[in-house]
């Protein structure tokens, strides 16, 4: 074999490994390393997810019977508020961008770190402070407004509304700082040769997400401040008692919270673009369509908030316009699904854990997307609005989409993050259990909704009991599957085989970096190629990983003959 097969960073000295290069609590607490911050975020958001997931199981257990089992009406309301608020603000919004994004964005750019490492650490601590504040407030006295804080209920109810909204305010800044950091990083730190259209699609998705985070989150800040002011000072904006209008609150709230839905799902879509291509060993189909559709979703996402208010008594013309805009955002999502599907065509599909999660995403997200058609259409939305149909719809998108995508991403980049391979068989089993449990939980809820079961009900009429019981059984299966997935990952830390540099045969830059990466990421600036060009990669049994065999000839056969003549900012 020629010397070219041995990559200079294939073997990382233990002292350079970002996990072990410095030790002690302070080396983590004060780190500026994007990878360590990413891992701390990962632990943080997964803890939040675990807590909110247990709350979900408590709710599902209570719903086994139409009458009270162990939660009073008030307790039920507090638990569903906690479940929703923790899932949205502490888990799903920061999940992919803050945890995986922090780890991956600089490495995918061949950079040492994000543009503003201190701001990055600050963002993590804001998340932590916001989380502690938010949780203490909610647990201390029992917030019962739902995560949406609708006025005038939120301005009149007992409970820590002001403290909780301040927590949301702090968390908002964390989100804004992360978005700002990524925008600057992606704009200014792309290596020579990486034009916009040679960027991995995960970075396109992260960029689109960051735009929303920076532009929409301030509106959430304004909204919660106005809400606190209404509650404390009675300024008369949301509460009709002081000549305010509750529908105004909904406009403010959803102006942020609908784009926030795309903060949640776009990064998941970015992950799937990477996963489908790498594990099909096939260049992504329609790169530009996927890239543009991320931006299109981010922009259209700002214009559709009114579909949360179809029954709130908006003017008819407004309602019709919002319906039209809502459908416009469905097209870019459909394009992505078709592109992911076509990516497998003539590829070499490896049915490993990661690919199974990606395929599960495709299946579940398709259901989530298609069921949006009923809710976007004004006449069918009328009976379905605020029922379990909506609950099922957004769980298919948020859990079936984002969470399953996030899990796929964790499994995909786990060897890179930890340097350990996980057990494939148990990984696949976890995916199968999650898939079955998820569908059993949420498919019956569509039917509950179309039969008229309203959401946020602690009690219900007995006709709905069987479907509720199916759903509850599914929820426990889902919870068990997630527990298995956690076990697989934790097991790998202690018993896992050492991961090679490139276990899956990825062509993006993070796979040219050691596993786990050294704290400086790359000793030499990595060679930038097409992100989905796998032509030079060969599997090597000795390393259980992929390497470029003939990099020189590969370079010549690359489609872009003269990348250097193009400016980096295409």
């Amino acid at each position, binding site marked *: 074999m020629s010397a070219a097969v041995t990559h200079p960073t294939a073997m990382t000295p233990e002292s350079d490994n970002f996990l072990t290069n410095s030790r002690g609590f302070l080396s983590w607490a004060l780190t500026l390393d994007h990878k360590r911050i990413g891992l701390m975020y990962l632990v943080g958001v997964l803890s939040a997810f675990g807590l909110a997931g247990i709350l979900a199981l408590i709710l599902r257990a209570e719903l086994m019977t139409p009458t009270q089992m162990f939660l009073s*009406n008030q307790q039920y*309301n507090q638990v569903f508020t906690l479940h929703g608020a923790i899932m949205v603000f502490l888990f799903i919004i920061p999940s992919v961008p803050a945890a995986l994004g922090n780890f991956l964005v600089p490495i995918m750019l061949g950079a040492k770190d994000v543009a503003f490492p201190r701001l990055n650490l600050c963002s993590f601590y804001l998340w932590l402070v916001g989380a502690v504040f938010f949780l203490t407030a909610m647990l201390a006295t029992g917030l*019962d407004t*739902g995560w949406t804080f*609708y006025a*005038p*209920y939120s301005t009149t109810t007992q409970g820590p509304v002001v403290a909780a909204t301040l927590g949301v305010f702090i968390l908002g800044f964390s989100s804004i700082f992360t978005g700002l950091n990524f925008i600057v990083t992606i704009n200014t730190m792309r290596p020579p040769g990486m034009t916009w259209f040679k960027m991995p699609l995960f970075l396109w998705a992260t960029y689109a997400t960051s735009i929303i985070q920076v532009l929409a989150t301030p509106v959430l800040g304004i909204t919660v401040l106005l809400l606190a002011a209404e509650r404390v000072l009675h300024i008369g904006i949301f509460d*009709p*008692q002081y*000549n305010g209008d*509750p529908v105004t609150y909904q406009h403010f709230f959803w102006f942020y919270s609908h784009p926030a839905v795309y903060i949640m799902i776009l990064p998941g879509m970015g992950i799937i673009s990477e996963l489908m291509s790498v594990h*099909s*060993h096939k*260049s*992504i*189909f329609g*790169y530009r369509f996927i890239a543009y559709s991320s931006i299109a979703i981010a922009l259209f996402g700002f214009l559709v908030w009114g579909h949360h208010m179809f*029954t*709130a*008594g908006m003017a*008819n013309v407004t309602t*019709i316009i919002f*319906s039209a805009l809502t*459908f416009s955002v469905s*097209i870019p999502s*459909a*394009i992505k699904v*078709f592109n992911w*599907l*076509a990516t*497998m*065509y*003539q*590829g*070499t*599909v490896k049915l490993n854990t990661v690919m199974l999660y990606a395929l599960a995403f495709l299946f579940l997200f398709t*259901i989530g997307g*298609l069921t949006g*058609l*009923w809710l*976007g*259409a004004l*006449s*069918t939305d*009328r*009976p379905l*609005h*605020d*029922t379990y149909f909506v609950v099922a719809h957004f769980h298919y998108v948020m859990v079936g989409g984002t969470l399953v995508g996030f899990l796929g991403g964790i499994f995909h980049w786990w060897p890179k993050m930890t340097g350990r391979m996980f057990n494939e068989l148990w990984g696949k089993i976890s995916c199968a259990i999650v898939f079955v449990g998820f569908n059993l939980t949420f498919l019956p809820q569509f*039917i509950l909704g179309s*039969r*008229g079961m*309203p959401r*946020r009900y602690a009690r*219900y*009429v007995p*006709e709905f009991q069987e*479907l509720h*019981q199916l759903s509850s059984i599914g929820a426990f299966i889902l919870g068990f599957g997630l527990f298995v997935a956690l076990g697989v990952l934790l097991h790998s830390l202690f018993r896992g085989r050492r991961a090679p540099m490139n276990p899956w045969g990825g062509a993006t830059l993070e796979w040219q970096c050691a596993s786990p990466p050294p704290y400086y990421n790359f000793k030499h600036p990595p060679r930038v190629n097409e992100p989905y*060009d796998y032509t030079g990669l060969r599997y090597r049994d000795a390393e259980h990983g992929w390497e470029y065999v003939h990099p020189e000839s590969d370079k010549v056969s690359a489609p872009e003959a003269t990348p250097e003549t193009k400016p980096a900012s295409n």
Partner: protein
Amino acid sequence: MMTMFRNSMDALLADQNATFFFPPRASTFAEETDVFFMYIFWISAFFFVLIVAGMIYFVVKFRERPGYQGDSRPLHNNALEITWTVIPTLIVIWIFARGVYGFIDMETPPADTIDINVTARKWDWSFQYPNGAIADTLHVPINQNIRLLMRSEDVIHAFYVPAFRAKKDVVPGRVTALWFRPILEGEYDLFCAEYCGDQHSEMIKRRGVVVHDQAGYEAWLAEAAKPPEHPVAHGYWLFSRLGCKSCHSLEPGKKIVGPSLAGTFGQTLRTADGQSVVFDENYVRESILEPQKKAREGFQNASQMPSFQGKLNNQELDAITAFLKALTENPALGDAVKDGDFSVDEQKALGYYTESEQESGGEPAGEDAAAAAQSPDPGRPAGEGVGTTQAESDS
């Protein structure tokens, strides 16, 4: 699990008007939304099967296996990409348009509606009918256009009758309107669909919506508008019906807008201009007919209260006086009226029981007592009780 599913199927088929997806079709909207629902269902099913079948086919055909060599080079096909952009676009334009068509029907009430005023509050509904009858259940005649004019007294609620496929938020500070045309006689559930606090799920009115034939509706309406005969019961009936209770609490010291009326009768009060006045028969009469004349201290804003001059006759004024007097004599009456749970003492105060009947074996007798026995919920005016009884005995 399958048994459970089959049981739920059986439960469904038991009601011949309900289908796998839908509750009974009891209004004209149901036809349109259900048919449209199924169109979208089949469109979605087509694309879903296409995507999943494609996925399975590709996974099987292009799976990694010995002797198979895939091609990793990029593919591009503009025609294909334009096709799968344009076709879904055309389909969603059609879905949008058909949705708007149904929506415009839902938002355009015909000219000849029966208007019913709806008040939502934590955690109850109140319906006021064209003849003045007030009830906590909704009664409508079949094949007539009904329009609900809805207000909330506190937070946002949403009126939702799945069988009518009708839903609208009830937003405080404004009136929202909802119309529908019932086409199937029966009793249907009414839900609150917007989270409104502690007892949100207690705002289920089980079979609280009754679609009558025309004669049945008129009979119910006439009965519901008929006042109870005993003066105290009549007084409370008027007190609820005239909207008094939305401003005057019956709990001691609780100020809503006007003063609480609990325990006030017979007391000497101070007026806003510093005089003292006895809360007696004359003061009650005067305050109802000319509310601004002797406004109480701390309630100078009595201009909010409308005058009832010419709206109430002497008998009705006497009934309200009798009710307020009974409220002072028996303070528990205020609580009883609020929670709807009457003890024998409270029923006595309201006139449902009399001493002689108690002595003659406790069996209720006489007209009022008969009404009380018939009504499962004496907290409601007797007229309403008849309707509720009917609804429950039918179920």
